[in-house]
């Protein structure tokens, strides 16, 4: 059984700042099952997951998915999400247009939900991921603890942007009343869904342990 000297990098005090990281102790921790292995171990013997002291090319992947998400997000806002055809009219709604439509019909709360889920959350998410990726270690103005909370918020809330995609799917399956009205998804439904998926992958690629690394 290998023994580990913990007094090394962290120092003797028990304050949170002084905690030793697995990397500083010459070890590698499994991010799935939290088991610790000697540095250089490739695969976790407990859960079978790949072991990385810090995920390789984490930032490249973060930025790759980030740009893919952004590229999909632009057409998602320019093209219609919904095509509503009634007896006399054909109406095309973009994300923002649909929300304004809701608001003018008095459904302010729902308009707000749509705007938050489809505009505020995606935009805030792009900014938050960029901030986290650009401010690693102890250079950042926000403390590591705040940045960790920001990351958890991004992970938790990002999925909720899918609401609008589900709404489009529901409306277009329900409203197929040949003569009277039909609703069909527009091209933005597809690019918006892709944008949400890509930004989720971007956030998942981020290795939050980098937030806590002491400046090299």
């Amino acid at each position: 059984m290998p023994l580990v000297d913990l007094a090394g990098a962290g120092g003797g005090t028990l304050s949170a700042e002084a905690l030793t990281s697995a990397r500083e102790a010459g070890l590698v921790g499994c991010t799935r099952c939290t088991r610790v292995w000697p540095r250089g171990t490739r695969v976790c013997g407990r859960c079978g997951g790949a072991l990385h002291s810090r995920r390789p090319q984490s930032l490249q992947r973060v930025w790759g998915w980030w740009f893919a998400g952004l590229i999909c997000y632009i057409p998602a806002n320019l093209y219609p999400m919904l095509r509503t055809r009634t007896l006399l009219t054909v109406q095309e709604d973009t994300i923002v247009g649909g929300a304004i439509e809701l608001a003018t019909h008095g459904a302010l709360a729902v308009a707000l939900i749509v705007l938050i889920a489809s505009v505020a959350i995606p935009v805030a998410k792009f900014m938050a991921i960029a901030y986290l990726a650009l401010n690693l270690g102890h250079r950042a103005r926000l403390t590591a603890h705040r940045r960790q909370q920001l990351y958890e918020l991004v992970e938790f809330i990002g999925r909720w942007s899918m609401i609008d995609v589900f709404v489009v799917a529901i409306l277009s399956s329900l409203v197929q009343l040949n003569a009277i009205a039909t609703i069909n998804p527009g091209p933005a439904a597809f690019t918006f869904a892709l944008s949400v998926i890509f930004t989720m992958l971007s956030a998942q690629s981020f290795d939050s342990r980098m937030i806590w690394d002491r400046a090299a």
Partner: protein
Amino acid sequence: MSAPDPATPRLAIDELIACPRCDALHRAELPHAGERAICRRCGTVLIAPRAGSYGRILMLATTIMILMFGAVFFPFLQLRVAGLRSDASVFDTARAFAGGNMAPLAVAVALLIVLIPVLRVLLISYVLAPLAAGRRPARHAAAAFRLSEDLRPWSMAEIFVIGTAVALVKLADLAQVVLGPAFWMFAALVVVTVLQDGFMCRWSIWRALEAER
């Protein structure tokens, strides 16, 4: 969770736990049932054992499967306009899109709200059923549990519930819309899933899988 004690700096490696979020090392100490061990640096929950949790998770998994069956085949919204009626079940929705150019959207929606949640329930049951019965873990249990954990963020039934509510309001002008039985099944499903998640201590499960191998 205690920080490594500086008085006894040399510890066996399997007594340690590294926080998956911030990499801080701790000595693993099993908290009392109902209590949680959290990371001293970032506050991530590391260990949260619950007495009898395997049995409860399996029970809730069965509940989820039954609810999901109803949620897929019953209508979640019903629309009445000018004497015409339109019901939409998840199954109808998927079928309506299957042929058209929106097939990828239909596949994505079916995956996110039905197939992935169902797959996760099956995987979790496969992993935990032998453990609950006090038997050796099933073959490839670790791989099954890994997959189930990877799929967690992609299971979006709860978001679909809110989406249904938004769709209801959007249609209110056009027609008379009623929430169908499947809406309430989806809503119940969300609550049961949250409960199930609360009973699941990942660390305990991984350790049980390792010890019994």
